[in-house]
């Protein structure tokens, strides 16, 4: 019984790392601009399909897709920012609808280009099993991207804390007007946060491709997970995103192991509503933007 639990915890942890990579991009944009980009999951998906294209179309290792994805997805993210910055009234709500529309466009474009077939990596190396401590099983790619994810999250955290640009982003996130007075160009910072989100999404997308399967509707699922984690973590905390992501991953794994796999999503939704109703500022957030 405990072996089962340990395996569930381990799997949940690893998948949490990947979720954290996916959610962090959304959380950064949320923190800087106070809005949820509903097309974020599609950015991740796009990177995943780029990895597929690299592998099947050009015979390259999926990892080689990362730089390509960064360029393409980064550009898409920047375009998203430009569209959002044109909204004059009720930015939070209108950007939600706008990115909702954008997500539909991206999903359909992906559908047009790559059809609805389920894709996954054909490179066996990624999917080979790795056993830790004799009992804990995972795919090589899961472990690899967990570590990459941790490294990326750590890097972003340090970047936010130590560099001028990072601090500028935090300044804009906490008080846009005051940040302007300190010589920060908020528009540039906001655009930057989108680009970083794109970067994170690119790596996350390749991770998803190598460790799992991709299909056009996945984008929406990923977006949902990302905003559940973002709200769970609360505003302004990068470690919070990691912890929230791991919590979600573990909750899903435990639900799948001890209840039914089909209830995994229910677990995520219940967690989401629970946070919104009971602790709207999130587990680690500093301010409350959720309640009236």
């Amino acid at each position, binding site marked *: 019984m405990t072996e089962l639990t340990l395996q569930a915890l381990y799997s949940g942890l690893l998948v949490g790392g990947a979720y954290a990579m996916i959610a962090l991009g959304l959380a950064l944009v949320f923190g800087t601009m106070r809005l949820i980009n509903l097309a974020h999951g599609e950015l991740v998906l796009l990177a995943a399909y780029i990895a597929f294209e690299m592998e099947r179309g050009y015979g390259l290792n999926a990892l080689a897709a990362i730089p390509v994805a960064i360029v393409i997805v980064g550009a898409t993210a920047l375009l998203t920012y430009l569209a959002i910055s044109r909204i004059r009234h009720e930015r939070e709500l209108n950007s939600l609808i*706008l990115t909702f529309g954008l997500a539909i466009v991206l999903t*359909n*474009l992906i*559908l047009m280009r790559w059809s609805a077939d389920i894709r996954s990596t054909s490179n066996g190396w990624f999917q080979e099993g790795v056993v830790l401590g004799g009992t804990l099983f995972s795919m090589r790619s899961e472990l690899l991207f967990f570590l990459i994810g941790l490294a990326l999250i750590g890097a972003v955290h340090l970047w936010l804390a130590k560099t001028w640009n990072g601090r500028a982003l935090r300044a804009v996130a906490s008080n846009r007007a005051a940040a302007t007075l300190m010589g920060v160009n908020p528009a540039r910072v906001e655009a930057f946060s989108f680009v970083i989100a794109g970067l994170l999404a690119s790596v996350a997308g390749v991770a998803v491709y190598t460790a799992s399967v991709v299909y056009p509707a996945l984008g929406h699922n990923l977006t949902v997970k990302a905003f559940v984690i973002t709200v769970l973590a609360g505003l302004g905390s990068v470690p919070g995103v990691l912890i929230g992501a791991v919590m979600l991953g573990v909750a899903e794994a435990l639900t799948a192991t001890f209840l039914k796999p*089909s*209830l995994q999503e229910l677990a995520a939704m219940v967690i989401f*509503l629970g946070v919104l109703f009971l602790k709207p500022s999130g587990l680690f957030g500093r301010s409350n933007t*959720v309640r009236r």
Partner: protein
Amino acid sequence: MNARAVGVAAALLVVYVGVPLAFGGAPYVMSLVIASLTIAGIAVAWSLLGNLGGLVSFGHAAFFGVGAYTSALLTMGAGWPVLLGLLAGGLGASLASLLTMPALRLRGPYFALAMLAYAHIFKILTVEAEPVTGGAGGLLSIPGFPTILGLPLASKTGAYALILTIVIASCLAYAGLRRSRIGLALRAMHDSELATRIVGVPSTRLKAAMLAVSAFITGVVGAFNAHQIGFLEPDYAFSGNWTLLPIAAAIFGGYRTVWGPPLGAVAIYLLDQLVFKEFVPSGHGLIYGVLLGGMILLSPGGLLPLLRRWSPFRKASPGATVAHAGR
């Protein structure tokens, strides 16, 4: 007989008589029209909630599915007459909306996302309640519409007349609410809830009531769809399309107006199915996303106010026209 009454009579004649005469012989087109009106009904419900309740929801598929299943189960399991089932579907959805009430405390975008979460939850619960709902396999052989006064509602023309009536009734109810004192209070609430509460307006209850009304309309439409199609399954009944298409339609048609959303729904759905689908068989759903994004950027008030602004018949003050488009 003033001009307005003549106009209304003419419009009714066109939709109730003209359309079936013109397209009655093309069952495929009639099916599309019926489907577009189904979307239209949800679009009316969605914009009612948005305009009167001040709440944007991304989860109306929840009410659609609950309405569909409620009616299907009551007519199949308990032998209820189908038309009564439609009402029951609406009530079922309203009851479901009571469960979503805690979300009323949330600000705009979070309310929208919470409703999305509810839609997912209801779908999963429907799948899990297999003994009752037939689980993922769904329900088959859902009873069709009866024949009323000699008109077989199960026929394409009959079903068309039924959904048309439902949509028109919903629009009239919406318009009526807007003009009433409740409508006044709701309008005032958008600006300052405190100002209304201090004179005795139970603001939260009114919002909950709007949510229940919106859910009711959506539930009736969902029930209609179940009996018209004849079968149901969770992925279909709770599909995100029942949320997406009405929102796109409402924003395209002008969500601040009463008649804009249903007209927008018919227009955009027919355009999609008859035109775009021909050119882009896979991925033509793109159009809804483009519409949503485009409308938000160009004219958040939708197409109708945009048209009014450009129309040669606009009133003296353009500001008044745009501002009054939604009142």
